[in-house]
């Protein structure tokens, strides 16, 4: 029989990175940080969504590309889940807006998910379960965020905007098949945002070892144990990317070499796109991977939890890459803005 998730795979993927970039040295200068803080975070610049963009519009763009790569009609999709921690509405689903705007079947499972940065990953897990059980043929999973950060807080160096979307479907149509998926969660309060608060708060160093590292290491070890794999079996490893350093550090702890992490590392150039962070990294890897290669993906969300997934690339991947904008194309389309424009775009300037 094998694992049920082996019946599902990534049929299509799409990403979105806003055009505008802020060099993080500007943030350091403005708030009087010592300039080497930028190196300590492994950050160069972050992507900034325009004032008329939000997690719905970015999620729509990524999903449109994912459907194009899937080569299916939107009406064939019967589940839409959107993971975000920057929903435009506290109450009112984003998934209904995106679903209708794309022309997805109205007979669909639809909801928004919240689990800090891993709700988009949970959206994939749910769809994999629905596809494996035969409940749906195709499901859409979206991770999209215009991440907020308290101005002047260390989080502002990384919090950015972006989206990723995946169409999950039958393994035989997939560009990458699931080999196994596991999740590890605990109650760990490393990062949160209270109701009506504009910005999240966090435990700074506490977000590291008890949160990010403990959960990712636990889920990845669990996955390897269940699948009987060792670190060297993976050709690529993609982790949640809260900054430019943590993914490399967690890889080292797991015994995975740096060169398997670098192909999927995007945060130094676009920032932490929260729910899209690891998922944009995975897309970038898919766009470069060869059939037969094995990819480890381990998103993380505060609060806290991590999913670990193993995917095997198929020969269908090549035909899908250039059907929609690639991560490389989105990375290279960029225009630098200053802090003032960033502040206006992200509504940090208070207007009445």
């Amino acid at each position, binding site marked *: 029989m094998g694992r049920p998730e082996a019946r599902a795979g990534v049929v299509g993927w799409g990403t979105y990175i806003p*055009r505008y970039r802020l060099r993080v040295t500007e943030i350091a200068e403005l708030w009087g940080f010592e300039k080497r803080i930028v190196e300590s975070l492994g950050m160069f610049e972050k992507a900034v969504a*325009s*004032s*008329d*963009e*939000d997690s*719905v*519009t970015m999620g*729509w*763009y990524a999903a449109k590309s994912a459907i194009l790569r899937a080569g299916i009609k939107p009406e064939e999709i019967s589940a839409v889940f959107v993971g975000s921690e920057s929903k*435009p*509405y506290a109450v009112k689903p984003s998934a209904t*807006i995106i679903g*209708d*705007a794309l*022309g997805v079947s109205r007979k669909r499972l639809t909801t928004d998910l919240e689990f800090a940065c891993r709700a988009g990953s949970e959206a994939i897990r749910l769809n994999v379960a629905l596809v494996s059980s035969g409940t749906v043929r195709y499901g859409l999973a979206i991770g999209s965020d215009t991440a907020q950060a308290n101005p002047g807080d260390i989080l502002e160096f990384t919090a950015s905007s972006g989206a990723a979307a995946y169409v999950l479907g039958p393994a035989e149509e997939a560009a990458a098949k699931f080999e196994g998926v596991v999740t590890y969660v605990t109650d760990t309060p490393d990062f949160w945002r209270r109701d009506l608060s504009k910005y999240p708060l966090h435990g700074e160093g506490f977000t590291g070892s008890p949160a990010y590292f403990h959960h990712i290491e636990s889920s990845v070890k669990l996955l390897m144990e269940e699948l009987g794999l060792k670190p060297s079996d993976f050709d690529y490893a993609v982790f949640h990317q809260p900054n430019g350093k943590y993914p490399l550090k967690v890889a080292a702890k797991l015994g995975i070499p740096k060169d398997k992490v670098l192909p999927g590392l995007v945060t130094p150039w676009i920032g932490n796109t929260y729910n899209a962070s690891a998922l944009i990294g995975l897309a970038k890897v898919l766009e470069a991977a060869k059939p037969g290669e094995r990819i480890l993906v381990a998103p993380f969300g505060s609060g806290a939890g991590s999913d670990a997934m193993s995917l095997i690339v198929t020969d269908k991947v090549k035909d899908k890459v250039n059907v929609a*904008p690639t991560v490389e*194309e*989105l990375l290279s*389309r960029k*225009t630098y803005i200053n802090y003032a424009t960033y502040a*206006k775009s992200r*509504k940090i300037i208070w*207007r009445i």
Partner: protein
Amino acid sequence: MLKNSISIFWRKRSNYYRIKLTKCRKCGRISYPARERCPYCGSNDVEHIDSSGHGKILNYTVSYYRREGDAENMPRIVALVRLDEGVVIPAEIVDSSPEEIKEGMEVEAVLRRLNSDDPYGLIYYGLKFTPVLNK
């Protein structure tokens, strides 16, 4: 009080989320938007078709004309876009700048916020246009 009507947007959302055209079976002309009558000949023998959302800038202007609620998105680039289907539609161009915009530039439709009843009212989404990536 809300600046925008919930029901007007809701009723027309398929026209805001996608570009729907009217094809006249009588005079054969295609027009924007989806209407029940052909704007050229008045015939009600029409069908509605979806545009690819892809076209070229026919004409544009950089607008500093401020209406209430415009402040965050100024200046605006307002254009006439000739869709691949041959129909011309008025549209806002985003993710471009007065320096780089050109007539003939290839553009595609993207979902953006058209308007919003800030801070507590609805957000109204619809299509604007952006230069085609890597063209």
